[in-house]
């Protein structure tokens, strides 16, 4: 006897937890080394003092943006490389989720586009709101970027009733 496997749109709570796990991994391994640099950059104080500081150091804003951009690129590479190579990330492996292409074979540009929301600079930060909201209005819980990249996040299910006899 062999089980016939099927994919179904991944449950939202699984996607959310898988994403959290990936963020934690990124935080420990990739972002933690930057925390010292970010702490030094970001002024602590009242709003007026911060405003005065940024006004006196105009180049600081661009440095901060550059730093955040690099962090975003690293996170983007994490998701795109893993999803392209094995159709999963660490979090997705744990929850048995997969990234599939709705057209033919999954391509690298598809993995890149679907993860663009992760870059923490304008205009990508707008996707933090737009991207998840579209999940509520699509049939397969697809985010906006998933629709654009023609991909979906699915989970493997083993229907108990299904058996294919030898």
């Amino acid at each position, binding site marked *: 006897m062999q089980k016939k496997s099927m994919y179904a749109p991944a449950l939202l709570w699984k996607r959310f937890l898988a994403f959290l796990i990936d963020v934690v991994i990124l935080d420990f*391994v990739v972002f*933690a080394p930057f925390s010292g*640099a970010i702490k030094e950059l970001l002024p*602590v104080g009242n709003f007026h003092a911060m405003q005065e500081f940024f006004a006196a150091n105009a180049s600081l804003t661009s440095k901060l943006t550059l730093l955040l951009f690099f962090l975003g690129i690293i996170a983007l590479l994490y998701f795109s490389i*893993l999803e392209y190579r094995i159709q999963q990330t660490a979090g997705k*492996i744990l929850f048995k989720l997969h990234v599939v292409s709705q057209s033919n074979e999954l391509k690298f540009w598809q993995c890149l586009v679907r993860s663009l929301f992760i870059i923490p600079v304008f205009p990508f930060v707008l996707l933090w709101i737009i991207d998840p909201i579209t999940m509520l209005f699509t049939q397969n819980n697809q985010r906006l970027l998933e629709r654009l990249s023609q991909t979906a996040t699915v989970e493997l299910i083993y229907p108990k009733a299904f058996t294919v006899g030898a």
Partner: protein
Amino acid sequence: MKQEKRSKWKIVLIVVLMLFVFSFLISLFFRLLNEVPEFGNVAHIKIYGPIMVTKSGGWMSSGTSSTDIAELIEKADKAIGVKAILLEINSPGGSAVASDEIARAIKKSNKTTVAWIREVGASGAYWIASATDHIVANRMSVTGSIGVIGSYLEFAELIEQYNVTYRRMVAGKYKDLGSPFKELTEEEESLLQDLLDQLHEEFIQEVASNRNLPYEKTKEIATGMFYLGKQAKELGLVDALGGKEEAIAYLEKQMNATATLAKYEKPKGFWELLTEVFAEHSFRLGEGLGESLFRKKGLLET
């Protein structure tokens, strides 16, 4: 199936490691960019180790360059938002010229300056501290040592024992004055001593002027003797006993605002950055892991 899962985790591990190296390189690159200004209303400048005009020994050298410190003081003086300068001193002293350069930079500044003496703030380091508006030292700090030293080892007899001859070839009879390979004559000793006395006199006058002490009293205590903080306060060489808190309390009183320290230091060279970034990476990784493991078990206070 199991093997497939294992190979997936292997790929995840490889990618994460690659990204770790990438982030390491980027953080190094980031620090090599133009120096990042520190936020705060008190410029915190460290004066550690021997004080010289320039640091010798490359990236592994210790000590303080007066050129660097004077530049930092000037930068803090011009910075909008910086209302005061805190000099953290832990130095046995150094060259008279280097000490004077820093002292002059301090006196030129229009902002409140405070010297916070840690373990040692003696000789040239005390010369610098005396130029500030307020000196705080620990009761056990070693300070004072208002004197000049020019001692050296003389090898004239030793080389003679080994049948080595010092061939004196000079144009200008005092050109090799102080050479360790020849005996110091009485006349030369007197000349050297005179130079040292002149430097000493400069030092005494500086301290007397900076600390508003009578010249005669300053000369009395300027025997080169070092004093502990408590004694130094009694003699009028320091203003208060304490540490960082006391220094900050004084600054806050002067500024009439909460003090926020901004680190002012010279941008580091490539190799110094490389070792520092590597050490910080390891620390942050361990800090994150340790915190996540032990905070939940209640072993760390939040």
